[in-house]
């Protein structure tokens, strides 16, 4: 019994720290796999449910996926002589769609600047009203464009204006939040300097904050413009105006106008890719320039 007194003190973790670590890893793995199983079960049952509530089933539909594109392409190929002419015919509506996106980005962006500055701590004109403006932006962001567009169509009639207003409102909320996050990180020293020489709030913002945040703001605005082109095409389809409306008319007509469908698909695709590339390129230059 004597030698035990000289032995090592009993280990709280039999097996040393290694075992404790392994136990932790095992526990983490268990949690991880339980979460993963739960997630995949949720996905599977979700797909099953969506499949059940769909008019046509997934497995019946799967082999028909290419039927419609094939039918469209076949007819368009038979009438391929029309395509160049049709292509030019739809350029004006494509321009209208781009115009809707551009104007709503500009108007929404302008509103977003004001909203963002008014709701950023340290910059706000009326610090007590910050939460009013940030809740306002949340509200604007949450309303989907289609809701406003459809209601406005009832009041204003068809055309591009309802879509433009709807997208502009949503843009002002979405960009306002991003702008305000950028402005929060702006250096306040220039603002203080301007205040010390008696600049008004508008001047402090224009000369103290704007130059700091302009590259990031522009970059977000370009990204939004990309998103808005897609949105304005979709709103045209649901409501009226632009290339989406032409697409809806051609789709409703069905067989006989598939050459138009192909022309619209391709012009829409090319425009989206063109503006994506253009804005991606510009954004890269803006952010790289800002880091220098």
């Amino acid at each position, binding site marked *: 019994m004597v030698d035990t007194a000289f032995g090592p003190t009993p280990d709280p973790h039999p097996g040393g720290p290694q075992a404790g670590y392994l136990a932790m890893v095992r526990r983490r793995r268990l949690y991880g796999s339980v979460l993963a199983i739960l*997630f995949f079960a949720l*996905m599977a049952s*979700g*797909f099953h*449910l*969506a*499949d059940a*509530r*769909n*008019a*046509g*089933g*997934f497995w019946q*539909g*799967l082999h*028909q*996926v290419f*039927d*419609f*594109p094939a039918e469209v392409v076949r007819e368009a190929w038979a009438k391929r002589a029309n395509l160049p002419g049709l292509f030019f015919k739809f350029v004006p509506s494509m321009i*209208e769609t781009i*115009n809707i996106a*551009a*104007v709503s980005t*500009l108007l929404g962006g302008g509103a977003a600047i004001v909203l963002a500055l008014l709701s950023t701590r340290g910059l706000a004109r009326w610090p007590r009203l910050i939460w009013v403006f940030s809740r306002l932006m*949340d*509200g604007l*962001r*949450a*309303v*989907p*464009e*289609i*809701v406003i567009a*459809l*209601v406005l169509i*009832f*009041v*204003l*009639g068809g*055309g*591009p*204006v309802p879509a*433009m207003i709807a997208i502009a409102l949503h843009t002002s909320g979405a960009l306002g939040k991003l702008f305000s996050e950028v402005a929060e990180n702006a250096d306040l020293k220039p603002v203080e300097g301007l205040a010390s020489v008696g600049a008004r709030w508008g001047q402090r913002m224009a000369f103290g904050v704007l130059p700091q945040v302009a590259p990031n703001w522009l970059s977000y605005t370009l990204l939004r413009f990309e998103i808005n082109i*897609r949105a304005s*095409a*979709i*709103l045209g*389809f*649901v409501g009226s105006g632009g290339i*989406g409306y032409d*697409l809806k008319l051609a*789709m409703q007509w069905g067989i006989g106008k598939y050459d138009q469908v192909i022309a619209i*698909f391709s012009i*829409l*695709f090319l425009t*989206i*890719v063109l503006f*994506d590339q253009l804005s991606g390129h510009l954004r890269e230059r803006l952010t790289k320039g800002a880091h220098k």
Partner: protein
Amino acid sequence: MTDAALRSTPTAMIALFRRKRMVAFSLPALILAYFVYVFLAFDLPGIAARARLDNAAILVNDFWNYKTHVTRDNRNGAVTVAIEGEAKGAYPSGQLPDWVTQSGGITRINLGQGHVVTYEGAGARYEVPGYGTIAITPEAGKLALSLPPGDVPSWISVSDTRVDVTTDAGRFSVTRNRTEVFRYQPGWELFFFTLDSPYSGLGPLGAVSALWGERIDPTRANIVGMVQDFWTNKMWRHGDVAWALFETVLMAFLGTMGAAIVALPLAFVAAANFTRLRSLRFAMRRVFDFLRGVDGLIWTLILSRAFGPGPLTGALAILLTDTGSFGKMFSEALENIDEKQVEGVGSTGANPMQKARLGVMPQVMPVLLSQVLYYLESNTRSATVIGAIVGGGIGLLLTQAISTQKDWEEVSYYMVLIVLMVMVMDTASGWLRRKLIKGA
């Protein structure tokens, strides 16, 4: 040399300032010119002329008002009282609202503020306080109108076959076939229970106290009955609406998560530090560009031809579009990882799968998750629009309600629900994002 530099500095400075000033003035001028062009291209003056402000008035009014029709069929004399004039909102006979009284073939409608309409025999009269009595009797197929002396005021419109009176208290209209009174009252009618439910007309206090009271419907407990009748409310269809909201969220969830699962392995193929084969990388990137460029609208149209309308079609459309977006973003995230961790894992003899799992994923997971959750929120909104196209979810209900152009209170109900749904998803995804990224 220094002399020249000194002399040229002010000139260079002045030139720079001049250029900056040019930009500062020409940019707003350009934007202004663009606005003028759009003003003309969108025909804004024409829009102003075509705008239906009366529609706007109906809309605003309907958002928070409902109307009750008191209709007499002039051919057989039957009087019906129905909310919004719909059969499912009709009051059962003998249970009329207290402002309509019937006795001996005379119907008296009290519109409040002293406005009273009386249907008597084949005729009807409307007593307007401060003006007098408007009486109408049909004579030989025409409407004979008697008014107080003086000019006919502008709120009464008269023709041989129709008389219309609009006051603050309501509207009164007589044609040869029917005599009708519309009374406007604030609120959303029958929101909880329709008139055929035994629980209608209890009021909020009555409903709460009935929870502990005696059974109103002897076959079921009050709470069960109330929930059932609310859920199956024929006017508002709360059950269907809840399903539609769920379908919309389901579309967004399945589409976003499915896209993330599909895009993750593909992103490894498109990342320069994992795929040495330049052509394969290039091809993968073009696939992503194609998926993104075709856009959700076109995917939706193509898929709905194969799968028919419903949430699955919407989910698959979101899945395809976002596979492109996620593939691009994930591959960029993969290219920006720190190679040292991967090398470290590799030095212990790990195979490529283990290197990816233990060396790469822990680094990119927070970025990936944050992007996926951000898209989940934004896709809830897209799913509303896609639902309107493919015919599923709350988007479909919304477009249906708007296209009938009369159920504006339902439109506003759906709008409130959509906004709440998006806000809940926004909050939930933000919470999850903070939780997961801090935990990681």
